[in-house]
């Protein structure tokens, strides 16, 4: 009896092992299986990360990161057999992006997310797409250039960003007398700066230029100071899904190899629809070259 039970169990295991996988093209990737099942790719996007991922004129998310993600969507379509996939845009914030990737609500996050080692405990990153760092924006004539000039003043920081941590650490390290006002997102931080609730707003310099370019009077604000952190941006995907991650890496390496990456970059930054005008830096050009792995 016992032996028969064991044989039955063995037969069952073999049968399961031999059965064709339910999703032949999706392989062992949970993300690809999910996408195939629903026929939809869920893209997480930001609303005010200009020009990476923001709400454009047609009320649709647009930007540099969104364009890169759409290239990956094309690669997914090809991998799953060429059928057209629907793209569903899910707005995320600095606080929601990591839990939403971890629980599978979004398949890929296309925003302005810094790749750091702590975050890698929960999510995985594709190759670096942009390199920036924390700086501060203030009103012209406020007399603020560096963080050290802000003694007794107020700085706004978006919750959940690497900038928040970097500036808090810098303030603590130098024991500066600066008051911190946490804000929900970049647009609220900018509103606080415009209405004089805060004296400066700290964020990645490229985002600050983006916010200034969309301000009512761009000449009234400037970005100053040294870099207070090193922030390499990358698209975010779920952990423990090396098949899907590789698909992303292959797409990105291809774009970098063919030079299409630089073209997409030029479309958004040189000078780009919001006149941000940030030519491709030597550091980023080198990063693109190094990450352009051969087939």
């Amino acid at each position, binding site marked *: 009896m016992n032996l028969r039970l064991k044989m039955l169990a063995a037969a069952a295991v073999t049968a399961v092992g031999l059965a064709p996988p339910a999703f032949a093209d999706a392989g062992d990737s*949970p993300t690809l299986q999910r996408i195939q099942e629903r026929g939809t790719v869920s893209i997480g996007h930001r609303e005010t990360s200009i020009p990476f991922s923001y709400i454009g004129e047609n009320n649709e998310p647009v930007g540099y990161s969104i364009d890169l993600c759409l290239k990956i969507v094309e690669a997914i379509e090809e991998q799953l057999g060429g059928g057209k996939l629907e793209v569903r845009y899910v707005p995320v914030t*600095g*606080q929601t992006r*990591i*839990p939403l990737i*971890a*629980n*599978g609500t979004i398949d890929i996050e296309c925003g302005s997310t810094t790749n750091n080692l*702590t*975050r890698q*405990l*929960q999510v995985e990153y594709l190759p670096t797409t942009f390199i920036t760092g924390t700086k501060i924006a203030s009103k012209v004539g406020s007399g603020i250039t560096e963080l050290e000039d802000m003694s007794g003043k*107020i700085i706004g920081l978006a*919750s*959940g*960003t690497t900038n*928040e*941590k970097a500036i808090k650490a810098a303030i603590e390290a130098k024991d500066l007398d600066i008051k911190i*006002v*946490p*804000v*929900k997102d970049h647009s609220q931080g900018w*509103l606080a700066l415009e*209405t*004089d*609730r805060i004296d400066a707003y700290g964020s990645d310099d490229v985002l600050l230029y983006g916010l200034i370019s969309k301000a009512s009077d761009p000449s009234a604000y400037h970005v100053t100071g040294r870099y207070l952190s090193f922030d390499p941006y990358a698209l975010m995907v*779920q*952990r*423990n*899904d090396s098949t899907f991650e590789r698909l992303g890496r292959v797409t990105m390496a291809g774009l970098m190899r063919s030079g299409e990456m630089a073209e997409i970059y030029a479309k958004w930054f040189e000078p780009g629809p919001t006149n941000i005008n940030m030519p491709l830096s030597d550091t980023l050009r080198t990063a693109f070259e190094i990450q352009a792995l051969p087939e």
Partner: protein
Amino acid sequence: MNYNWDWGVLLRDPYLGWIIEGLGWTLAISLLAWIIAFSLGSALGVFRTASSPVLRALATTYVEIFRNIPLLVQLFLWYFVFPELLPEDWSRWVKRDMPFPALTTAVVAIGLYTASRVCEQVRSGIEAVGPGQRQAGRAIGMTEVQVYRYILLPNAYRIIIPPLTSEFLTIFKQSSLALTIGVVELTAMTRQIEEYTFQGFEAFTAATIVYSLVTFTVMAIMRQVDRRTALPGTFSKGAA
């Protein structure tokens, strides 16, 4: 789900301290806002049932305005728009020099909003006591103030203890909206823990438990209050 669980993070320094500090701010906002809500709401509730048509109109207008605009919108109006309508130096005082600008704004906004809801509870309590009591009071020569002081309000408050408890629980939970204008209360603190450790699920579970513990405590206390203050032979018989 692909996630590294780590419940220990909640007890680690400084995160445990953050949760306690956040709870402190949450209680501060709720209690201060409740003081505004209860006192203003009671006065408005009396106005709403008073014989003077002017007072009634005043209280009705207040309720219609404050109860019909979403609290989050009111919070933003008080925080971002209201200071811009003030003269230059007042505006600066509200935005910078006022003690705890964000906290104070949150307390006022949540307090004023909840006052409109408390007003309606008080009004319904007074109406539940019935017109007979009011007429009887006036017939034995009491003034309107005396009728409210000695007959209507003592009965009305007893009747509305259960719904007032709900209002208090609501104010306590709504205090989390204060984080949208930068008050680092309990929910904001748990978000901050998530930002530093990326253990969001643990942090939010902790917040859920802390909120529940506080609300259960309030409910238990209010049930006792209801039972102790109950008058035999009236509507209020204590929460059964």
